[in-house]
């Protein structure tokens, strides 16, 4: 295996817009909101940027295709811009593009921007999207909650867990994220909720109720990355470096082969294993101080705790109920409220997760600052459990 990009790329600055129903602004405004914060944080002239990556998922709902929306909104100085899309891993893909370019020596300063403007069309939940011309002929007319609810049915059956107990653990996931979201000024949903509210909420797709589902939002987040040498030249003595970025898409095994049990995401397990190896992490539970995972639904976060090796097989419900992933737990998860409460503007989400990890590692997370975190993890799960794209990234605080 190649040596990877461990510590070859420094995050010089990051920005994140307020997430929510941003009727007051368009995608260009959201990008500028995030970009101005990142440029100020990076402390460089914006004209030093040499390349940019733009992550946008729903081109039908949002800013359409290509590099143009970013280049035009920011009036970028005639630099190459690449638009990327990889379902819910889109924001992370933008960062991966920028990080790889810097690690390869193709440029010294690169921008990764993710944006999504979902609320203008008035859709509740994620808008319908095309699945191509063949899949529509046979696959169900599913919704994301219905597709992810599948995990709960098979997880309960596989581990012999009664649904009421699983529902309680799932409720704890959401209660924890609302607790964290309430302390996050830019989050979309900022009210605390109780376990009873979650359990009594209207059913969306059995067994997922309303509070088992994340928010769907407008928002943008971005990062400016550089090399350790350039960061030192700018006077940085310590910085947040990228330790690993791994991405694994399904190749059809879950959808067509009997090997998959329907109760875990093999892509996440593989991406995590590779990311831990790239970053030199031997014991994730002991080493990861903060996690932002793809909690599109409560059951997703529960299953991911096992896929990311944070819980043993069948142990996630017990660990969750024991508070292992609460703010003051063993491995704090979704310290900014996660997709559940910070919100989920698809193309921005991977970068929003990196933003929270960056803020925590830099000691700038304000009211929700963890005591001296050193290693952060972000995870995306694009698509649906039987056909998905998983990304696992690791970030660390590093002497430069």
């Amino acid at each position, binding site marked *: 295996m190649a040596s990877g990009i461990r510590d070859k790329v420094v995050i010089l600055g990051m920005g994140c817009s307020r997430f929510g129903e941003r009727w007051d602004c368009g995608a260009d405004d959201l990008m500028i909101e995030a970009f101005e914060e990142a440029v100020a944080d990076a402390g460089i002239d914006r004209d030093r940027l040499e390349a940019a990556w733009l992550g946008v998922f729903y081109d039908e709902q949002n800013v359409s295709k290509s590099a143009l929306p970013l280049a035009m909104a920011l009036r970028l100085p005639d630099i190459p811009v690449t638009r990327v899309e990889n379902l819910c891993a889109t924001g992370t893909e933008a960062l991966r593009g920028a990080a790889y370019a810097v690690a390869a020596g193709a440029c010294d300063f690169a921008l990764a921007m993710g944006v999504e403007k979902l609320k203008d069309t008035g859709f509740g939940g994620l808008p319908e999207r095309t699945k191509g011309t063949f899949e529509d002929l046979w696959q169900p*007319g599913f919704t994301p909650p219905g597709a992810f609810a599948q995990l709960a049915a098979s997880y309960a059956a596989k581990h012999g867990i009664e649904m009421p107990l699983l529902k309680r653990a799932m409720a704890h996931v959401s209660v924890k994220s609302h607790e964290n979201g309430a302390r996050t000024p830019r989050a979309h949903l900022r009210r605390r909720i109780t376990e009873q509210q979650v359990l009594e909420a209207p059913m969306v797709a059995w067994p997922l109720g309303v509070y088992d589902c994340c928010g769907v939002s407008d928002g943008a987040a971005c990062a400016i990355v550089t090399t350790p040498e350039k960061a030192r030249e700018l006077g940085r003595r310590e910085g947040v470096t990228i330790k690993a970025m791994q991405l694994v898409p399904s190749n059809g095994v879950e959808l067509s082969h009997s090997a998959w049990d329907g109760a875990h995401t093999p892509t996440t397990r593989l991406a995590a294993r590779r990311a831990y190896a790239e970053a030199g992490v031997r014991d994730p539970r002991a080493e990861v101080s903060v996690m932002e995972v793809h909690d599109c639904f409560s059951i997703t976060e529960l299953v991911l705790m096992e896929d990311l090796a944070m819980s043993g097989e069948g142990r996630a419900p017990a660990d969750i109920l024991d508070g292992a992933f609460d703010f003051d737990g063993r491995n704090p998860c979704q310290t900014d409220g996660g997709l559940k409460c910070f919100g989920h503007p698809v193309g921005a989400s991977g970068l929003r997760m990196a933003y929270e990890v960056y803020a925590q590692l830099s000691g700038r997370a304000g009211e929700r600052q963890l005591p001296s975190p050193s290693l952060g993890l972000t995870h995306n799960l694009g698509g649906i459990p039987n056909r998905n794209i998983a990304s696992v990234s690791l970030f660390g605080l590093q002497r430069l």
Partner: protein
Amino acid sequence: MLAQVLDSAAPEAWILVVGFGQGVDALLFRATAAVAGPRTVATVAATLAARTEETSYTRFLAHCGLLSPDFGMRAERDNRTAQSVLWRKRDAITAFTGGRCRACGTVQFPPSRVCVNPACRQTDTQVPHRLADSAGRIKTFTEDWLAYSARPPLIYGNVEFSEGGNAFIEFTDFAPGEARVGAAVRFVFRLKDVDRVRGFRRYFWKAAPARKH
């Protein structure tokens, strides 16, 4: 109508099918001895007997197009029809034909050029494998109240075939609360959705409870 007559036709019987309206089509058939042989598919009478009754008059009117309920934004999706895709994939869609890899024996749906078995992945090794008569088992499922369905909830999930292989398909004839992980299903050919803009009805196979038929 032809299928219903064939259910009870005797060998050697003559069957005339006539379609009338802006002209006339007439087709004359003669039954062979095979009509008296063992049946592999359900008869029309058995299919009708295994029906789920609609007892809501409002829903009945909506099904007949006499009421136009607001089904929400998810019903506004354009179910684009690509006839060339249906023609190209006709065996998979209309006959529920999957692929069986000659190299490793893995059954898979949809059939594909490259075998899905991670230990095989050979190209152009699959032969047609009929799944319509296979037994299935529910691996996962949900009852989705958010998805568009003329008769919510939309119930669907991952189903495993007895000979191996998995398909993500819609369920039918299940009442809410009836589906269970591990439950046995059979496969039935049903209306999947309608392209109202172009007036095209799509059919595909759905998982139904494995009752006697």
